[in-house]
């Protein structure tokens, strides 16, 4: 029997929703190993976040209050110290989890299963490789297993009504804490749903030709749907939209009910980030574009002609309720 530690991801003093997917994965790992799970809330505002996290059925919620912004150097020694008695340490494979957990693993001489999509009954983990073109199943062969899980493959845990005890743990200062100073984090705030959590994602590619066209042509459609806005790497690189919008192997992985790809040819790297979507719509001038490999519906058209019409049509349907 071994227990599982979930590392909660905090943003501005509250747990991000990503944490709830890690809790779901932790429950599965704990069930398979016959143990229970605890949650570690670490960072500024950990104690406040712990109150909410206490409602998810954890054995206990541990808090490590660390002022200032997140740095791997500032957090990893404490997570490793707390985590060394556990059989597994789990976080969601966000830019937080994928930054912090390998460092924790290194401190514990532990192996890492990164961006896991399935926890198997025999203790192995399944994960995509080669931009999702190969699915690998691996075992982590060390006493502590360090695991990051893909948010879209583990449903957000629901509050269980329990009330876990909250205990604070002491902060372990590593040797490197002073070497990295956080000058600031510009958090991109949006009225729209989060890309990785939205039911509908509308994405644009380089065919939009400019940032202005993204704003004037794509965004009204995004908002007509009440969707999150995504983009191809080409569109992000060209500066049409900020990099947080990138969907793909190296950006965010999304799996909404509806994914609308406009002016996106569908490079392998992009498909890797969205082919788990339930329904995929492509709008593209080129009907041979690789996006056709995954599209359920394909409108061969010039986006500048049809996107404004699409926006009006969606608004009409929504207004009709």
């Amino acid at each position, binding site marked *: 029997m071994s227990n599982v530690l979930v590392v909660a991801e905090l943003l501005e003093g509250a747990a991000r929703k990503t944490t709830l997917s890690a809790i779901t994965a932790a429950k599965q790992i704990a069930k398979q190993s016959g143990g229970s799970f605890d949650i570690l809330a670490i960072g500024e505002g950990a104690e406040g976040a712990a109150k909410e996290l206490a409602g998810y059925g954890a054995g206990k919620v541990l808090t490590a209050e660390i002022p200032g912004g997140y740095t791997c150097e500032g957090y990893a020694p404490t997570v490793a110290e707390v985590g060394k008695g556990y059989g597994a340490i789990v976080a969601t494979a966000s830019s937080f989890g994928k930054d912090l957990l390998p*460092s924790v693993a290194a401190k514990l001489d532990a192996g*890492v*299963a990164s961006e896991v999509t399935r926890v198997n009954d025999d203790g192995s983990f399944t994960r995509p490789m080669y931009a999702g073109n190969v699915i690998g*199943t691996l075992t982590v062969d060390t006493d502590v297993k360090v695991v990051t899980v893909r948010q879209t493959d583990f449903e957000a845990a629901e509050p269980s009504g329990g009330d876990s005890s909250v205990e604070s743990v002491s902060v372990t200062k590593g040797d490197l804490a002073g070497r990295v100073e956080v000058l600031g*984090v510009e958090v991109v705030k949006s009225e729209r749903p989060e890309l990785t959590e939205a039911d509908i994602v509308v994405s644009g590619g380089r065919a939009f030709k400019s940032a202005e066209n993204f704003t004037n042509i794509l965004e009204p459609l995004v908002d007509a749907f009440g969707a999150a806005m995504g983009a191809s790497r080409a569109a992000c690189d060209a500066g049409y939209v900020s990099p947080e919008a990138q969907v793909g192997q190296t*950006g965010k992985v999304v799996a909404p009910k509806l994914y609308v790809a406009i002016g996106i040819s569908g490079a392998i790297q992009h498909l890797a980030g969205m082919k788990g979507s339930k329904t995929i719509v492509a709008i593209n001038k080129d009907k041979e574009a690789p996006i056709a490999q995954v*599209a359920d*519906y*394909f409108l061969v058209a010039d986006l500048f002609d049809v996107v404004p019409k699409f926006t009006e049509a969606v608004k009409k349907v929504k207004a009709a309720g």
Partner: protein
Amino acid sequence: MKILVPIKRVADPDNANKVKVSADGTQVTTEGLEWKMNPFDEWALEAALRLTEDGAAKSRVGEVVLVSVGPKEAVATVREGLAKGAERGVIVEGNDNDLDSNVIAAALAAVAKKESPDLIVMGKQTVDGDSNVAGTVLADKLGWPIINYAMRIETSDDGKTFAIKRDLDVGVASVKVTGPVVITVSDSILHPESVKNGVTPADFKYPEAEGGRYASLKGIMQAKKKPIAEQTLSGLGVDAKRTVTYKKFELPPARSGQTTFVESVEELVEKLRTEAKVL
């Protein structure tokens, strides 16, 4: 400034959908696919070259050393990096099946200890394993800070301190770090003003380029004479063991269903309402 850039050869990422698995599911087979430099490593190399040159005068002011851990055929990938402008190469020979992030990080740490660079710049992930682990483990083994997902790197004191912007899920973080440090780069590092080194004029802009600079003919000729040192894991005293074992590889299930081509926005909206029931 001396920079170590770890690079890995990967099966052509633009044809990753042609990767197969062996009948017994124990091996990934990449026959028929060309070997390419891992794209993130290519971008890391571009960042390292920008840090060690006067971009406007096109002159080198520092040293970039490439290191690849893998089969000896990876020498071709190292040679490609030398043709783009790196000064030297190191190959640490190892069979891909014996290597995981932990062993690779240990091998890179051993090379870094011999080379004592001011900085290690590498890709945030390789596009075959897609793990995003080796850079961070390497930093830990060296006792250096790790800065993952760098999109801008600035130094004005020849690599003693760096101001770095990090590409995060929630936005952009600005950090200041004292070297030596391991930096992994994100896609955004190819921005025309991604690197400021205090030597290249501050208003200089690099051309927009898909994968960083190309090797010139002169560069290719010069690369043939540049030294590539050969090392082995045992020669470097690396005794790290694998910490994970792949038991099985499979191809992903194909998406079910055919593509329906629609003629108009009206037809599309109708299908989304009545067939897909998502609107």
